[in-house]
Each structure stands twice: as C-alpha cells, then as structure tokens.
C-alpha cells in the first residue's frame, strides 16, 4: 500500500514537474533576459555618456530638428545631440565624400525610405539596425502595428520604418468646390476643372512622385499613361513649390491641388483653410513614412550614443515626441494619434498601397520617360 502511494506520489511529482517545466523555464529565461537587456542598456548608456554625443542627420526643417534635439536633451541631458538637416541627395553626396576620405562623422540617419534605398544601401554605409535595439518596449513586436518591426528593405532590414500615414491626393477650396464633386479619381478630369488644377510636379522625388507612382500601380501602365496625359491637359499650373500651391487653393486662385505636399499640415495649423480629399472613393490612396525611417550608419563614431538615441527614438517617449513634432502617425501601438490630423490617419476599409518598400520605391524607366515627355520642362 505504502509503496503504491509512494509510486503514485512520485508519478504525480514527475508529471507535475513535466507540466511545469516550460513555465518555469520561461520565467527563468525571462528573468535572465530582463537582466540581459538591462545590463546591455546600462552599459550602452554608460559608454554613451563617455562618448559624449551622438550625431544624427536628417531632412532640413526646424520642426524635425526641435522635435528630436529638445526632447532627447530632456531625456538624456548628459549626451549631446548634434542634428544637421539636408535633402537626401545632398546628405548622400556629403557622406560619400566624407567616407572616401575615411571620415566617419554620422551615427544615425532619419529620412524618407528612398534615401536609404537609393543611396546608403548601395554605398554600403549601413549596419543592420536590430542589433542596436535593446529596450524590450522597442524590440517587442507587439509594440508595433501588424505585430512587427517594419522595414522598407524587408530582406536586409536596415531601414526601419517607424511611421506611416495616409498621403492626401487632393485638396480643394471649399468655397468653390464641393467634396463630392472630386471624391473619385476620374472626377478630377471633368472638363469643368480645366485650367483650375495646380498639380505638384511628379518628376522629382516627393509627394508628386509618390502619387504618380501609386497611380501607375493601381491603374496599370496604360490607364496610368492616359490619366497622366489628361491630367496634364487639365492642369492650370505644374509647380514644385508645395506651400505656394496650397496657398493658391486657400485663396481661391486654383480651386484644386493634385498631390499637395505634406507641408499642408503646418499651413493648416497656422490657419490656412482648405478642404481635403483624404482618399479617392474608387482607388483609395497610398501610405508613406514621410521622413519616418531610421538607419544606423556603419563605423559610427559614437556607437553607444547611436544605440541610446535609436532606443529613445523608437520607444514610446521618442515616438510621441516625433509624432507630435511632425504630425506623423507612429507605427507604435501605444502612441496616441490624437494630435495627428484626421486625414493622415489610415481608415479601415480603404484601399491603401504601401509604396515605400524597396522594390516599389522608384519609378520604372518607362514611367519616367513618359512623365518627362509630358511634364518635363
């Protein structure tokens, strides 16, 4: 009897141990892992303070500069942040010349995805970004939309996309146009709008380029070419000055602006009034990161400063600061979009094209040739 009980006890114990092992292991592993990231973070922080600063390059503009430098300084007063802004091509030219002369001055880049794909990846100037990510709130996929860290280069994972917003294809003057008159793509070609549309030049990179790439994608080459031609015939002005076009619409000089720039957010905040078509009912719109992607430079002069900065930028605090400063929609699930204009927030049920992946980032030679033939100057 005793031996039977003993066997039963031993059996229960073994079974219990067997069942509990994964939980115990997980708990133990988690503890070890917690200690691991904490140690890594403390070490990075300590060394970053010794390095003294981190050098970040990004797009020009005082909003992005202030959003990054002022908030990072609050979080890490012992680590200086040097931020310089320039356009993608200028950044690439400068950094290439520096690297040819064995000068490695930049730690982190913040830019649009095409800058990474067109310049810095071919330059072999980037390191994979994930090894630099330490904080659990950053590396945990659940912190991010679609349960994943998003990259424009899905194979090599060097250009981390941390914000995506809806790209507005059309704005209008509410005193001259009703929203329902232009809420579908082909309504824009109505003869009554002839000479009344300011079109953002589609040839250089930027909003115009993105919208025309999206049209090529959703319409297919033949229909897109037809649309390009008809829109050119409708246009009252083809321009590259985003602010001027938006002001034209607000003042009524042109009732419509096709592919308005992202500066509409700042201008609206300052008091310009215009109506927005956030997406066309028939074809939707496309998603863009704007300047919301980050890269880690290889041979970074302040590698620990770069780690601290990236973990701050991609954490809740950094993303909130960036999102508030730029009006962008963070890909983090715990960052509020309350401050973001409604027209930039992607809506359920709308067709969106994520045109920022490496393979879609530039126009095809056929598309460029055709656009130059009708929009070139």
């Amino acid at each position: 009897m005793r031996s039977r009980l003993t066997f039963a006890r031993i059996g229960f114990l073994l079974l219990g141990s067997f069942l509990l092992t994964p939980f115990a292991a997980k708990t133990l592993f988690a503890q070890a892992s917690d200690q691991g990231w904490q140690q890594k973070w403390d070490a990075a922080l300590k060394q970053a303070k010794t390095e003294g600063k981190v050098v970040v390059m990004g797009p020009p503009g005082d909003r992005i500069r202030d959003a990054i430098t002022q908030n990072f300084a609050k979080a890490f007063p012992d680590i200086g942040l040097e931020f310089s802004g320039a356009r993608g091509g200028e950044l690439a030219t400068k950094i290439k010349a520096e690297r040819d002369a064995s000068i490695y001055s930049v730690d982190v880049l913040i830019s649009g995805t095409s800058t990474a794909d067109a310049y810095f990846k071919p330059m072999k100037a980037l390191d994979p970004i994930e090894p630099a990510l330490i904080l659990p709130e950053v590396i945990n996929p659940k912190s991010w939309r679609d349960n994943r860290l998003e990259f424009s280069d899905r194979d090599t994972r060097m250009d981390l996309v941390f914000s995506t917003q809806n790209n507005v294809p059309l704005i209008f003057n509410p005193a001259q146009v009703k929203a329902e008159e232009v809420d579908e793509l082909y309504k824009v070609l109505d003869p009554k709008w002839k000479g009344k549309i300011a079109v953002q030049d589609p040839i250089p990179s930027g909003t115009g380029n993105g919208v025309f790439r999206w049209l090529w994608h959703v319409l297919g080459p033949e229909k897109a070419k037809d649309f390009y031609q008809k829109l050119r015939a409708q246009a009252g002005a083809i321009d590259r000055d985003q602010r001027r076009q938006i002001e034209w619409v607000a003042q009524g000089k042109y009732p419509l602006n096709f592919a308005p720039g992202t500066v509409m957010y700042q201008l609206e905040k300052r008091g310009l009034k215009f109506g927005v078509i956030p997406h066309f009912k028939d074809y939707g719109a496309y998603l863009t990161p704007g300047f919301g992607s980050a890269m880690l430079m290889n041979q970074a002069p302040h590698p620990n400063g770069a780690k601290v900065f990236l973990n701050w930028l991609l954490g809740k605090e950094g993303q909130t600061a960036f999102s508030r400063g730029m009006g962008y929609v963070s890909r983090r699930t715990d960052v509020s979009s309350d401050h973001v204009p409604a027209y930039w927030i992607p809506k359920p049920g709308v067709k969106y094209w994520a045109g920022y992946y490496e393979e879609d980032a530039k126009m095809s030679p056929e598309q460029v040739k055709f656009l130059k033939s009708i929009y070139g100057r």
Partner: protein
Amino acid sequence: MELTRRSTFRPFQFPKIEWSWIPVSLFVGLLVLLLAYPLALLLIKSFVISRPGQANVWSIRGWVEAFADPNLALAIGNTFYLAFVRVVVTTILAIFFAWLVTRTDVPLKGFIELTLWLGFFLPLLPMTMGWIMLLDPYNGLINKGLMTLFGLAKPPFDIYSYSGIIWCHIAFSTSVRFLLLTPAFIAMDAALEDAARASGSNNMGVLMRITVPILAPAVLASTALGFIRSLESLEIEMVLGIPAGIYVVPTKIWDYIHWEPPLYERATALCSIFLGFIVLLIWLHRIFLRGKEFTTVSGRSYLVRTFSLGRWRWFACGISLLFIGLMIVLPLMALMAGTFMEFFGNFGTEKVWTVHHWTAVFADPVFLRALRNTLVLGLGAGVVGTLLYSLISYIIVRTGMAGRSVVDILSWLPWALPGVLISLALLWAVLGSGEYVKLLYGTVALLVLAIIIKEMPLGTQIIKASTLQISNELEEASSTAGASRLIGFLRIMLPLLRPSMVAVGIIVFISAARDIPTVIFLATNQSRTLSLLMLDYIADANQEKAAVLGVFLVLLIFALLFIGWLLGLRRSVVRS
C-alpha cells in the same frame, strides 16, 4: 695664349633672380591651386554618371543629355534676353545715380546714397515676396486697388512675367552697380570735367564724353560683372518664372542639382555655357583695355568737386526719390508688413497679424550660434577676401611676372559656377587633399574660403578697375625714395584703393551672411550659419520666419556700418 683663354672663358651664370618675386610666385601658385584644383575635380567628375555611393562609371552621357534637352535653346534665349535688358536698364540708372551723388550738387544726396545702399542690403527673395504681395494678378494689393479705382476688368500688372522678373531685379541690380561705380566716380579728377566745361560742354555732354569714357574700366568691369550675375540669377526666376513657364539656364541647373539623385554632371555641363561666355567677355575686355590709359589719380593733387545742376537740381532729386520710393521703400514696407503677417500677403486668414515669427526666430535654440558663425564668416571673408583681391589685382595690373594672365583668367572662373557646385568642388578638394587639409572640414574657416572663392570675380575686377585708375608714378616716387615694393603697396596703393575695398568688403560680408548654396556641403552642425537656419525655415514652408532673418541681417549690417562710421570709415575720411 693664357690671356686669350682667359678672355674667352665665360663662367656659367645663373639667371638673375629677383628675390622679391619668390613670395609672389608662391602666392600665385597657391592661388592657382586654390581655384584650378577644385574646378578641375568638378570637371573630371562631370564624366562620372553613377549615383553617390556606387562604383564610378565614366561616360560623356551627362554632357550629351544636358545639351540634347529640347527646351535648352529656349532657356538660353530667355537667360540672355533677361540679362541683356536688366544690364542695359541698370547700367543707365547706376551711372546716373553715381554721377548725381558724387559729381553734382543734387539736394538730399546723402539720403539718396544711403537708400541706394539699402537697396543692395535688402534680401532678394523676401523682397520678391513683397512685390508678389503688391502685384500678384490674382490678389496683389496694387492690382486690386487699381481695378477698384478705375473699374478695370483685368489686373493691369502681372508679376509672373518677363517684365515682372526684370522689375524685381532693378532695385538690387541698380544698387549693386551703384555701389561698384561710386568709388571710381569719387576718384576722378574734376580738372578733366572742368576742361570740358571750359570748352563749352554742358553737364550731359561732360557725363557722356568725359566722365563715362574715363571711367570705362570701372563701367566695363561693373557691366561685365552685372551681366554675368544676371545670367546666373536664380531666386527671382524660380519664384516668378516657373509659374509663368519661363525657364532660364540657372533654373535648369537647379533642377539637375535638386534631382534625386542629383545630376551634377549635367549641371556642370550646363555651366560650360557660362564659362564660354566668360572667356569671350575676358577677351573683349582685354581688347578694349589694350594700350589705353585710364589713370585719373596721379602724382599731382586731384580735384573732387561737385558741379551745379542749376534748375535741374530738384528735378534730378525728384527722379531719384521716385525711384527710391517705388523700387526700394514700397516693397520694403510690404516686406516689413509681411513679417508681421501669419501668411505673407494673405489677408483672408482668421488671424492676419502676429509677432510670432519674430519671437520664434529669436527663441530658436540655434540662433545665437548661427549668428556668431555668420559674423565670423562675414567678417573673415570680408576682410581676408578684400585683402586677397587687392593683392591679386595688384599682381595682375602692376607686375610683369609670368603667370599673371593665368591668375587674371582664373579670377573670373568662380562665376561660371553656381555656388552649390563651388561648395561641392571644395568638399571634394579638401577631403581629398591629405590629413592636414582635411582639418579644415567642419570649420568656419572653410566657409570663409568658399565665400572668398565665390566672390573673387567681383572683388578682383572692381579693385582691378580702381587700380587701373591709379598712376604708376606714385609708386615710382615711393621706389625712388627707397621704399620697397611691399611698402609701396601698403602705404600708397591700399589707402588709394580704400573706397573700392570698403565697398567690396561690404558686398562680400553680405554675400557671406546670405549665401546658402556655397556653404551647403561645407557647413556642419557646429558651423551652421543664419543662411542655413533660413533654409530650415523654408523647408518647413515658413517663409515668414526666413524673411524675419533676412530683415534682421539688414539691421545687423546697418549696425555694423554705423560702428564702422563711428570708427572713421565715413566716406569723407575714405576719400582723403
């Protein structure tokens, strides 16, 4: 026999060396290196067609594609047409005002001179915004006013046109030409004009037959410079030309530079148009000046006297005030008002007026550092550049040393290139020239060097023209008295050149303070200037804040001039 041998023996003799030429030769060599090397790099790299970061691919494709552009011929035509009209108009105006202020008894001449200087200081782009506010065909205040007043169906003016572009250039271009011509007018001996009057010539006859021909080097140099500057002009053509479909070569170059990826090879190729024109201009300039004498300042004392305009005094004053009021004060007031508006020229917003742009600029955390860098850059480039240009002018005009014609030609070259390409060429040159030169990178000193190179044609040609006015006999007298060439240069040439040098120094200072493209590749976070801060504001579509910085720079320059005036740089002192 021995005697014969002795008499035929000629020991080897080294060529006679004038030791004083050694530092000068070294200086010329350095100058050639400074100018020719970056430009050569740029030319070589214009045959590389790969993107930044990719392995070099050599080809002439960039050049071929730049010149195969079907719209290029029209752009070239537009460029030369706009430049020609501007130069004709501003040459007449600048000569008239320089003569009026320096050689006549026109009333309020101090005020006229001061406000014409002001025309030069005003920031070009914000001033154009001021004109748009007044002359936009849709909502320009003058257009609306005239339409209401006279019941017009259409606006009478359209700023987005050829005439609009020329109009917006006139104040600045006249002012800069005035600034460049005034010193030459001051340094002219009145005895020559007296002789003409004694022979029965009237004021206009004296101006056209004596004053202008005598001042030919200065007038020619300023006209040539004005023409080349007009060919290169970009900002106003960008803002007013593009909506009207008027494209010029600089807007094409700008397009190529701002392409993604930048097409520097095509931009460089198009610059060869300017280069060819500059070479032609140098050749014509030399032909014109060959064998002629333009000295107006010689060993004997010379008279600086004003002539009475008689009953035309107030008429001339009225014309001047009308020009100043219409071309400078009116857009300046619009500009000033614009900096206090939420949106420049937009009266349709809920909140029209604000001081926010001013407070935001001065509260910008990088403002003070940018201001300090700008002052160092402006003063450094102004002082060092002016001394360098004087030395170069002296070498070209006064010495017979080999290589001076090369220096002369090289001194024109920077104007064949837009600032951004000079910036790029210097970036490549400095980073590719060894460890010690590399130390310059990221410092304000490199920005100073870039501005000195950029403004070399203007500085050198203006001081050269003034040097031509000074007779050799002054230095010969100094040499006879035992002074060295250096002492002669320092004690005789520099004081006589001072009016031109002050004018050039101020121009270089302003250029340094405002220039964005020439420093764009060379500045770092630590050496950021106010002009780059302006770029930040423009990138965020806040032209109002950029305009505030432009107005602030004008005030700063005026403050510096006032300090200079207190320190004794008054023209009366300079004249002496």
